[in-house]
Structures are given as C-alpha cells and as structure tokens.
C-alpha cells in the first residue's frame, strides 16, 4: 500500500515536469531534482537544521516567498519540515526527493499572465523571522569581534541567503 502511494506520488511528480504543475502550481518537483541531489540532501545529512525558501522575483523585487525549516533525526532518519512552530510534514530520508518539493511548491494564481518571473530556491535566507528565531543580533561577541558580518543592506529587497540552490525563469 505504501509502495502504491509512493508510485502514485512519483507519478504525480512526473506530471509536474512541465513548465507548470497541473493544479495551478509552478511544478517545482519537476525541475528541482538536481538541487536536491547536489545540495539539499547533503545539507540534510549534515544533521544541522536549516531553512529553504521558495521565492519569486519580478524585476529583481521579491514578490512571493515561502519558507520551510528542515531537520533530521539522526537516529531514525526521519526528516521533519516545519513552518514556524507548525509541523508540515514528516518522512523518511529516502523519500526526501519527492517530499521536500511539495512544501516548496508555489501557487501560480498570484502571478500575472504574460509577465516574466524568476523562481529561486534559497538556502538559509537572511530574513527577519529566521534571524529573530536564531537571535543572531548580538553585537559585542559577534560583529565587534568579526564573528559575524551579515549583509543587512538589501534584506527586504533582494532576500540575501547563504546560497541560491536553483534559479529558473518562468512565465505564466
């Protein structure tokens, strides 16, 4: 039954391979596989919780974002995805490639027809909610000793991050 579910899931992912998903989504599962295998899986295996953020930019400005926090239980290989305090999903690491993208999926209903957008998956974005949660704002022990030097400048505009894992131009 479980395998059947997995097959159905993979089938659904396969449908997402087009430019857009079948149900008014961007169909991220169809084109994020390399980013998962190259970077995201490595990050999960490192055992340190981290954040992924799906973003849509128009003319360089952030118009949509959705963040998930990823953590791994090292002893049973269960991955948990959270948004704030809410648990979005739990699955075994081996199912990660199909499960992570579901939570990064973006509805395209807010995107205007005919316009060009850039979709990016960001690793550990420097956004206020994350910085507040991690309390990365102290001065003496961090900035004054050069322990930290966050690029705060265009925080609200361009959403700086540790790394852009995936970038793709999209047009509705």
């Amino acid at each position: 039954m479980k395998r059947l579910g997995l097959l159905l899931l993979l089938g659904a992912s396969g449908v997402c391979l087009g430019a857009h998903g079948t149900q008014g989504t961007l169909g991220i599962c169809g084109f994020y596989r390399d980013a998962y295998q190259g970077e995201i899986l490595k990050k999960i295996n490192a055992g340190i919780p981290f954040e992924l953020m799906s973003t849509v930019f128009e003319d360089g400005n952030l118009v949509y974002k959705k963040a998930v926090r990823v953590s791994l239980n090292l002893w049973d290989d269960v991955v948990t995805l959270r948004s704030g305090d809410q648990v979005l999903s739990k699955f075994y690491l081996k199912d990660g490639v199909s499960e992570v993208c579901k939570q990064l999926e973006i509805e395209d209903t807010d995107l205007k027809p005919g316009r060009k957008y850039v979709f990016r998956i960001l690793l550990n974005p420097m956004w206020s909610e994350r910085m507040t949660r991690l309390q990365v704002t102290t001065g003496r022990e961090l900035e004054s000793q050069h322990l930290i030097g966050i690029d705060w400048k265009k925080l609200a505009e361009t959403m700086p991050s540790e790394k852009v894992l995936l970038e793709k131009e999209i047009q509705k």
Partner: protein
Amino acid sequence: MKKMIMLALGVFLATTASVYADELPREEGLPSPYFIDEVHCEGNHVHEVRGGFYAPDEVEAANKVESHESCENLLKAFGIVKYSWISPDDLERTATIMKQSEYFDSVELAVKKSELQNHVHVFLKVKPKPQWFSTVGNDFKYYAGNASQGFLINDKLSGEISNRHDAPSNTQTWGISVEGYGSSSPLAVSPAVVSSDDYEKLQNRNYYLADLSLKEQGSVSNHVTYDLNMDLTSDNIASDGSNRLAFDMQTDLLFTRPINLVRGNAFIGPALLLGNVMPYQVSSQNYYYLLLPGFVFGYDYGQDFWNNAKFKISYYNSFQNNSIFDYAFNGQYHMGFIDTFLIGAFDMRLADNPVLPQDRLPLTGPYQGNTYIGLSKIYGSDKTSRQQVSAVVGLEVLSYAASTPTYEQVAPYVGLKYKLTNSDWNLNLSAGYYFQRTY
C-alpha cells in the same frame, strides 16, 4: 490456548502498529539536545611544531595535539564545547554565525551520530581568510578661533594591524598613531580661571602626541572575555616643549551575557588602569604613576551596519584622590528609507587629578565631552566591500579647572566621516570644522 495465541498476536500486532505509528510522531516538538563526544576540524590555523631535536613521529604527534586543541578552541569561541550538551537549534544558530563570520571564506558544519543515543561528533571544515587585517585612518580638525586666538589645526594619522591567526578566541592588534597640533597663537584663556599648570600647557601652540599600542582581545570561556590595551605615548605638550614618555595599561575582564528579550548583549566586570608618566629627563617632581582599580559595564545591541546602540560606563578609583569616570554611548537607527541612518554619540570623561597624556591636559576635577548627531548612508551590500558616509553636527566641551563655576570651552562643529570596509582592511576618514577653539 488458541484464544491466548490470538490475543497475544493481537497485542503484538497492536503494539507493532502503535510503535510504527508512533515512530514518526515521536519526533514531535523540539528534538532532544546532543551530547558532544568529540570535535574534528579541517583547514583551521594551527601552530605547527617544527622538527629540530624531535623525531618525525614525535613532531607528527605534537602537531596532532596542537591541531586538536586549535579545533577545540575555535569551536569553543562559537559556543560548541566538547563534553557538553547542545540543542539542534543552537547548532543551527552557530552554523549561521560561523557562515557569516568575517574570519572564514567558507564553513561547513556537520554532526554525525556517535555510539550512544543522542551522542554526536561535530565536524567543522573551514577555509580561513588571510591572517592579517589592517585599518588606516586620518582625522582632521580645524578650530576657528576669534581674532585674539587665531586658528588651531589638529590632525591624527593612525594605522593598525591585527593578527587573526588565533581568532576568534584571541586577536592581537598593534597600532601606531601620530597626532599634531598647530596654532597661530596660544588659546586666550585667562590665567585667573585655570590652574597655573594647565595654563602653562595651553601656552604650547605646536605640539605632537605619538602613540604605540597593543590591544589584545580574547575569550577565557563562553561568557568571560578580556580586553587588554597597552599604550606607550610620547608628547611635548608642556609649555617649554620638553618631551615626556608615558606607559599605561588598561585591562577589562568581562562577563558577557546575551539578553534575549531585547536581543542584545550585556557585559560587566572588573578593570584595572595602570599608568606611568615621566619626562625624558626623569625628575621626582614630574614623575608620577597611576594605579586605579575599577569596573566596567555596558550593553551592545544590534549590528555595526544596521540598527545598533552601544553604551559603556567605566569607573576607576585609586582611593587616593584619583578617579576617572567614562561614559560612552553611540548608536544608529535606520530611517525607513534605503540605507539611511540617524546616527548619534555622546562621550564624556570626568577625572580627578592627573590622568593620562592622551587626555592632553592634566584635568583637575573637570570634564571633557563630545556629542554629535547626524545622517549616515551605506553603500555596497556584500561582505567584501561596504562604505558608509556620514554628515554630523556636534559639540565639543573641554573644561580646565575645578573652580566654581567650572571654566569651560564649548565648540560647536560640523563634520564628515567616511568608512570603507573590505575583507582585508578598513579605511576611516573624518574631517571637522569647529567654530571655536577648545585647545
């Protein structure tokens, strides 16, 4: 019997199902903290032991020990301590801080499970930035005096170089500065309102002040840090132009603690100020020393390139009529439009009896202060290059004597500041126009 078997099988299946069902929800809520069994590093700076009298295998063993100690110290500076507990949340925070650290070009932090449940090994792979970091600065001031005073020019050129080999657990900074004063005439202050000693020093129109310094900043443990400042100063402020030499050392041992509610960091601790001032031709009359125990406390909030507020209060008392009270505050606040900040600062020093040559005048019970407010704009967004340009208006106050009321000079001023921050060096420039003379 069959019923018993069926019942047992039912219980077994139910238990298995519940275990399986519980397996995923078990991780609900925050994950348990990890106990760190061991730490491993790659790429960190190590003081390598050379060959010499030792056999190659002894050198190799010694280097392994050095490498491991260096690894432990490096992680300790970021709050990861061997044989202690750490939560996944704290690991995420630490990884974020390390990745943003100005000491490294790249950082990879990982944990792997150890033999026991919730026991882990921590793995760190870093690519350090260059060992040396330098700062160059120039501060120019023009004091416009009235017709009887003439103008005074002050320029201070300074340079610093920091050794980050043992950073962040320990950083040494060597500095040198040369400051020159030149004026067309001495400041017109009536001898009646200043002490004769002060008045003599005001007569020297052209004088210099040179300073060699060594600062060391390090951490003793997670919450205990120290700041050590040593200065060797030379000047000819005296009216006859004679030279004198001074040595002073200030050390602060600080207990620091993050204050999470307001997202800042508080620190408090004992301090010691030791000074020794002598003319080049040592005579008992002019030779003096200072030994002032004291304490400091303060609070830092925010980031250098974002909203921040910092204040520090230091008080020293020798219990023999010598005391110094320092108050320093500065901060900046984002104005709401891109990269423009409201900046401000207030510094004040009250001193009883002679203090250090850097204070230029033997302040007998008076005070000196500086305050400004202004606008600042930041250019450049990446870690490798940022520039900050500021325009300020302010007041400089200097009092000369303990008479009542205290005689003081107040000079309003306007100034421009420029700060360039690169990954390897900083440049600080400032220029001020003072509408009156204080010196």
